């Protein structure tokens, strides 16, 4: 199969097009790194959603709940490990950050398992009910978050070593964004390796292409799906934790705010495609940051415009998944 590299070219193209508009190279580098960091965080949150859609034709409108839960759990753990966060030592800071993120992933994953059981399973194949019921799940989850963590927003401060920026000449790069880029790339690499180099990944890809055939060959696609759903929820939790630290304030509505970006990303990428989701997320992150710098008032409108342009070019998204 020939690789379709055209959409990938869009990323450097966009960055190059923004360069003369932004003007100074220092702010351009800063914005580009910020855009990549934002895009990768969105990718982490969106990857599970697009895979579950591709595999079982299930779109979970309650995905935002996992993002929010991840953010809240991570915040609680980090507040509990407050002293480690305040010390000016990268290792101690990471020692607080790591368990927080792992806890967020674990809780979101378990929640995802329960969500799949209780909410999603009875409505396979019925899109209207799926949308309604998962939206209902989101409503309930947001209210439960308010019950557990209180209705007020939580303010988080980033660990000391991740505060501030690194200066390279006159280029300033926020440290936290570097971490976000690293985490995002690790997740992407892990996903790509799993999908392309392992047996499970082969089955998942085959399931996305043609689920019935995989079942006919004797594999239980349902189990595969539950696994993907749980991993996707855990990744949403990870993304939520990262996003919460990025914003430094967390409200119960955090999932609802981010889910819009996530949806735009998976539409741009082509529903069901992880590679498309990756490209789409980077495009969205970069556009948001460039436009946010050039014309701050229309930043969110720019994503819609981006989506419309890409859908005009490729109506099924950048990497359409074959059967749909």
């Amino acid at each position: 199969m020939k690789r379709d590299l055209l959409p990938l070219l869009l990323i450097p193209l966009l960055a190059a097009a923004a360069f003369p508009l932004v003007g100074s190279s220092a702010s351009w580098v800063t914005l580009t790194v910020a855009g990549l960091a934002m895009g990768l965080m969105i990718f982490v949150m969106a990857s599970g959603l697009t895979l579950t859609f591709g595999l079982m034709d299930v779109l979970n409108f309650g995905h935002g709940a996992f993002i929010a839960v991840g953010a809240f759990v991570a915040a609680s753990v980090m507040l509990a490990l407050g002293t480690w966060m305040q010390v000016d030592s990268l290792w101690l800071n990471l020692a607080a950050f790591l368990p927080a993120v792992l806890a967020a992933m674990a809780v979101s994953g378990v929640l995802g398992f329960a969500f799949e059981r209780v909410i999603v399973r009875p409505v396979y194949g019925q899109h209207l009910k799926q949308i309604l019921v998962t939206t209902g799940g989101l409503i309930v989850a947001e209210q439960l978050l308010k019950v557990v963590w209180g209705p007020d927003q939580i303010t988080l401060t980033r660990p000391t070593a991740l505060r501030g920026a690194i200066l390279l000449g006159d280029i300033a790069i926020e440290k936290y964004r570097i971490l976000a880029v690293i985490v995002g790339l690790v997740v992407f690499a892990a996903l790509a390796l799993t999908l392309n180099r392992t047996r499970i990944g082969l089955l998942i890809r085959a399931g996305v292409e043609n689920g019935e055939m995989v079942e006919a060959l004797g594999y239980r696609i349902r189990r595969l799906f539950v696994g993907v759903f749980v991993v996707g929820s855990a990744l949403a939790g990870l993304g939520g934790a990262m996003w919460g630290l990025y914003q430094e304030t967390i409200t119960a509505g955090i999932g609802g705010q981010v889910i819009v970006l996530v949806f735009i990303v998976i539409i741009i990428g082509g529903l069901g495609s992880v590679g498309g989701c990756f490209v789409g997320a980077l495009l969205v992150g970069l556009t948001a940051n460039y436009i946010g710098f050039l014309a701050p008032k229309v930043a969110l409108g720019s994503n819609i415009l981006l989506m419309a342009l890409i859908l005009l070019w490729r109506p099924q998204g950048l990497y359409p998944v074959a059967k749909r």
Partner: protein
Amino acid sequence: MLRSILSDDMPRSRWLAIALLAILVGLAFAPFLFPGAKSLNVAARICVFIVLAASFDLLLGYTGIVSFAHTMFFGIGAYGVAIALTRLGPGWAAVGIGIVAGLALAIALAVLIGLFSLRLRTIFFAMITLAVASAVLILASQLSAITGGEDGLNYRLPMALRPSFRPFDGFTGRLLDYYLVFFVSLALVLALLRIVNSPFGSVLMAIRENPFRAEAIGYRTVIYRTLASCIAAATATLAGALLALWSSQTSPDTTLSFDIMVDILLMVVIGGMGTMYGPVIGAVLLVLAQNYLQALVGDRWLLWLGVAFILCVYFFPTGIVGRLRRR
């Protein structure tokens, strides 16, 4: 007579008929039955939300498409009137211009979104409307020169609708305003009832049940779906205009926010999808709950409604009205 007013869509259940009659009488005589500024406000909001929820049901219950942009049209109607009244001064001409401009924008947007995404699948439409609606919400709170930003707009109503207008004793502009809202809402609900019981409505239901078959019989589903979403958008716009004429204050929170979208979803699903009486019951229950239930069960009343919503989708897809009609 009654049959033709209700477009031959009778309640078909004694309890439903009683409930609807109670709602009609309660709203028609609300200023006298429940005196006080707060209860009149609640009654007016019930009228507005009945229209809004009923127009959403045209999409969700009859055509089988989920739009998350319904509050966007509601907001466009409200902002149309609000901006016109702010800019052009408090007069009926301004109200008219605001409504017409709002309708034009709403229908144009509905056509655009419809043609863009309705030929694809339900899920696609739901996601795109969600994205567009959130962009409009952000725009409304950012373009403060036009929309007043987060705070919204405060404006003066036409003379005849102000509380200080007293043509004769015991009658105020506020009362006139209420009956304006009430009768326009009643007319809109009856018009929607007419639409869903027309041949056009039958085509919509056919599309909901089986789009392929409807297309095969010879109905262009894209056209019908887009038309339905235009009608729903126009009705929601009018509901927004009514709200703006009632509250003399329009802000993103009261017209565009996703909380309102969630409210409408709850109203339609709990009340009953696919009948025009469902949203009526749902809107009454939800607005009453918002205003009075909070005192009884505390702040987390939405949690219980959310659980009720999920249970409704699973076990009572036709909601309260479907339950009542089955016996």
